[in-house]
């Protein structure tokens, strides 16, 4: 980073600090969420009922159209050839055999690719969403093992794949830094979202040394790869200088803007759609494949379809990086923490911006007399790592919650009791009040339901045949985020049908269904009178389905649009209506019309208002409020995770026999889809705990298990009955009282499993995954 960038960042940091303080000190009523969303008070409406996915039938019948299924006239198919070295220059690149094959339209290399600007990388601009900042295929340099070196376009996918396999490349290799241990000699303090992660409160090292009880351990988590069931793909076409891209995306507006920068065109010239997505988890952003396909389409003058192979995803879509974390806790005999230290090292690259922020959960999890938190990063020559379900918290809670369990064992106290002892009253590192924190209640109901009282306090004492049985628990936590940029268009037609349009995403979470429910309830309409349109960059809003923030972002945008709509409707209703003279805040949607909130007899139906006004439709567009609530309150979701495991005394095999997640995530909007979200997160957490590991060969920087046969994720037999319960206590300061729940499910799981393994065997595994050889 240059001196200028440093200075700019410092100045921005100072300004942000002043703003932050002002927001913290402002009266509640000035802040979004200061007055609770009226929807929270609804008791017997749609919200909170079990509603099946509206897109379920489309998906099971195959009618839902995914990115690589859009039919376009004159379509050609893309295939990629990848580098086989981590660093150097391309010496020779022979594409003659590929070009000569029947059906091949062209082969694009750095010699023939159109000139492109470097990709704006995530967190450098509001809509920047590139996985790395490197120019794509613009010169002979290789930056990671697996970087694309050529694109083939052909009449069929099979022809393209075959041609790509015939491309012959030789390299002038350069010395690459691919070994983590070597790179650790040059580590730097890392920043996340523009703020340094180093946090010191008091003198934690001295307090740790002085504490009568302490643990001080190192935990390691490996690289993880993204494996959404839908491979990354796109179908795209240039119309003149305008690009239409059917993408698998969790950020259509961001992709449109970022691609516009790459191609040097206006944002409005890029139209991105993404109606259905088969899982994103942080990976469905902008990687080389969309850029290369668009560049090749420009060169060929034809529409292009690209769908990565599973290996392709491993070669060029980043995953979660490895971490090495130290957690040290100093405690009094009564369990109170004197010192809480969470520091460590992660690997990233010189061309991305994502030091895995594993300390995030520790900022607000426990009260302590002193804190030392820090993430240091080293740079490797590898594919840019990226966001992956609960970046920071997923691996950070493994270390933190394992250490808490280790301390509880040392103190001889119940690990839940130790957590309660250190429950903070306000955010322990910022002092801001919590908006809603009921983790103690979640633990109590979870423990009761799970039968925690049957856990043996002494490890290794419960045996059934060959199997040792144990129970463990851990805290799950993930922040409530709401990013700026939410906006929605709301249209009411004279037949009393409402349509909301917002550039949001349905990746299988149930977003479209749940927000149809919410809008129906807000407007007092049945669900079949409400349509939720999304997944199109031409729609209002810059809404990323990431950071578990989409629900809040949509919620706030719809609140603003609803207010605008009611304002318009009251104007149209005029003085001849029972609603005459009322303000938008004095009316609510009820049984197909507007009613005075404190006098349900003063009503007029939407149909009546529009027909009297001789209007076919009313359409409004509004932006959500600035998300200041996240600075005024400390806003987080919580969970108490309980695992029962069986460890085989002969083989060391671990089987999770029961799992329960007890969540505190505000109001649950749709229990059916929410349960799936929680379960899915927990299953992914079981994978992280027991089997997921990218084999990154440090000699070559190459991933050696780029396949679902060798990169293990849980199969049915690895997944026990997972019970999910929740407090259902609305967060009064969040739209709908709800929190996004996409990520919290994976947090705490690995620690709960590791702690259960300890309880079963007396063995503490501090490096994931917990494979059988570590327990033999």
């Amino acid at each position: 980073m240059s001196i200028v960038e440093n200075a700019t960042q410092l100045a921005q940091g100072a300004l942000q600090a002043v703003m932050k303080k002002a927001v913290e000190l402002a009266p509640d009523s000035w802040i979004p969420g200061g007055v609770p969303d009226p929807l929270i008070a609804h008791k017997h409406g749609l919200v909170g009922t079990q509603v099946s996915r509206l897109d379920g039938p489309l998906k099971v019948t195959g009618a839902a159209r995914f990115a690589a299924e859009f039919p376009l006239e004159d379509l050609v198919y893309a295939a990629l050839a990848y580098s086989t070295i981590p660093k150097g220059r391309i010496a020779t690149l022979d594409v003659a055999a590929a070009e000569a094959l029947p059906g091949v339209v062209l082969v694009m290399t750095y010699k023939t690719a159109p000139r492109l600007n470097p990709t704006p990388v995530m967190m450098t601009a509001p809509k920047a969403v590139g996985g790395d900042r490197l120019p794509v295929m613009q010169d002979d340099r290789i930056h990671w093992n697996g970087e694309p070196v050529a694109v083939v376009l052909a009449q069929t996918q099979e022809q393209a794949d075959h041609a790509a396999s015939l491309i012959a490349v030789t390299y002038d290799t350069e010395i690459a830094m691919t070994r983590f241990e070597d790179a650790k000699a040059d580590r730097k303090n890392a920043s996340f979202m523009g703020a340094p992660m180093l946090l010191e409160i008091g003198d934690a090292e001295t307090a740790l040394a002085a504490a009568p009880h302490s643990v001080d351990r190192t935990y390691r988590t490996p690289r993880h790869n993204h494996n959404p069931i839908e491979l990354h793909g796109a179908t795209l076409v240039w119309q003149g200088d305008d690009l239409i891209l059917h993408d698998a995306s969790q950020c259509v507006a961001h992709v449109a803007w970022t691609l516009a920068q790459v191609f040097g065109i206006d944002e409005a010239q890029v139209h991105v759609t993404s109606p259905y997505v088969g899982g994103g988890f942080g990976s469905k952003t902008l990687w080389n494949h969309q850029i290369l396909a668009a560049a090749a389409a420009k060169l060929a003058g034809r529409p292009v379809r690209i769908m990565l192979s599973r290996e392709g995803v491993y070669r060029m879509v980043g995953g979660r990086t490895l971490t090495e974390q130290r957690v040290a806790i100093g405690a009094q005999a009564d369990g109170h923490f004197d010192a809480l230290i969470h520091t460590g090292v992660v690997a990233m690259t010189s061309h991305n911006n994502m030091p895995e922020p594993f300390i995030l959960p520790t900022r607000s999890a426990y009260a302590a007399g002193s804190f030392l938190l820090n993430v240091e990063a080293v740079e490797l020559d590898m594919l840019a790592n990226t966001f992956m379900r609960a970046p920071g918290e997923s691996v950070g809670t493994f270390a933190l919650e394992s250490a808490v369990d280790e301390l509880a064992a040392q103190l001889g106290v119940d690990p839940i009791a130790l957590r309660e002892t250190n429950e903070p009253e306000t955010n322990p590192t910022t002092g801001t009040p919590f908006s809603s924190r009921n983790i103690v209640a979640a633990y109590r109901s979870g423990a009761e339901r799970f039968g925690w009282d049957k856990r043996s306090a002494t490890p290794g004492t419960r045996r059934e045949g060959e199997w040792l049985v144990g129970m463990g628990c851990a805290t799950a936590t993930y922040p409530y985020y709401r990013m700026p940029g939410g906006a929605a268009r709301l249209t009411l037609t004279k037949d009393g049908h409402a349509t909301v349009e917002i550039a949001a995403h349905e990746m299988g979470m149930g977003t479209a269904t749940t927000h149809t429910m919410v809008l129906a309830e807000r407007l007092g309409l049945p669900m079949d009178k409400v349509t939720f349109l999304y997944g199109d960059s031409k729609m209002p809003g810059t809404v990323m389905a990431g950071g578990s923030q989409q629900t809040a972002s949509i919620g706030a945008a719809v609140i603003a649009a609803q207010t605008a709509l009611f304002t318009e409707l009251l104007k149209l209703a005029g003085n001849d209506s029972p609603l005459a003279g009322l303000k938008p805040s004095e009316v609510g949607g009820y049984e197909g019309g507007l009613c005075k909130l404190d006098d349900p007899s003063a009503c007029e139906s939407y149909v009546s208002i529009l027909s009297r006004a001789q209007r076919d439709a009313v359409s409004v567009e509004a932006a959500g409020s600035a998300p200041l609530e996240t600075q005024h309150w400390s806003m987080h979701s919580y969970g108490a995770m309980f695992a029962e495991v069986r460890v085989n005394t002969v083989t060391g095999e671990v089987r999770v026999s029961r799992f329960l997640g007890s969540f505190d995530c505000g109001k649950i909007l749709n229990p059916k889809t929410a349960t799936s979200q929680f379960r899915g997160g927990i299953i992914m957490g079981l994978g992280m705990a027991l089997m997921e590991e990218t084999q990154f060969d440090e000699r070559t920087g190459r991933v050696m298990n780029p396949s679902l046969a060798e990169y293990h994720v849980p199969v049915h037999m690895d997944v026990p009955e997972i019970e999910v319960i929740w407090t259902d206590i609305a967060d009064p300061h969040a739209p709908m009282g709800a929190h996004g729940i996409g990520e919290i499910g994976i947090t705490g799981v690995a620690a709960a499993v590791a702690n259960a393994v300890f309880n079963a065997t007396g063995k503490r595994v501090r490096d994931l995954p917990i494979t059988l050889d570590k327990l033999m």
Partner: protein
Amino acid sequence: MTPFSYARAEDVAGAIALVGATPDTKYLGGGTNLVDLMRETIERPAALVDVTGLSREITVGADGGVVIGAGVTNTALAADRTIRAHYPMLSRAILAGASAQIRNVATVGGNLLQRTRCGYFYDDAARCNKRAPGAGCDAIDGFNRIHAILGASPSCVATHPSDMCVALAALDAQVRVAGPGGERTIALVDLHRLPGSTPERDTELQPGELIVSVALPALPFAAHSTYRKVRDRASYAFALVSVAAALETENGTIKEVRIALGGVAHKPWRAFKAEAALRGQVPSEANVRAAAELELADVAGLRDNGFKIELAKRAIVATLAELSGEQA
């Protein structure tokens, strides 16, 4: 995938003639491994001869032995009543492998000829003597958690991935092959090779030879047998170590015993030394452990797979304990 021609054989002679007619032709069974390797361009045959229509019979002989056609699917073999009753280890081994969908198309002949799952074999950016003879081996100092602890060479440390073959090795199965020079029989334990200096050759099959059937000798005591597979997840993973074992005791001592190991070598590993040591002995934990130690004496692990040595010993002990416990 590299383009190839495809032909379907009508009978064994026709298949052999078709393969002989075009250089670089391979027989195609269920394709669950070969087609994968073709997609990865690790295998690039010019032509495929589909033999799935041939020899799909399971025949029980007068002596109680069984002849299994090479085209019998894994599912059909595992579900066969005779196999389940008389050779349960074989049924269990098959069901421990792959997934139901794969077993439904995978054939017995194809299962025998599976290639290794070594990541360096699968990636043509890596050095691999099996894929490119003389290139070197990146697995020896690389990721080798799934690799061999027995019978490996400086050229190759790959393992054979089959579960079914481990049971067949324990059962003294005989493999019937037909080729341009006529038919012959090879013992299953002699079909697969150790890598030595020619790891590119997985088996003793000669060019053009086709597996037509696998014969199981009548082995009454094999009705008392089982298969134990240890792996990194509960299903759909290759064995780290597996044990196929059968046991017969008489007057408290071992009369007959069969032990074969999977996941430990370039071939299904018949534990002849351990078997010999156990015959006539009391099937005590100490005796079985001593036999396992003998079988795995002087074995050294690589960077990631050393745990398999102890795991194999424990798996043998536990499997025989289970069998002797049942018999007691």
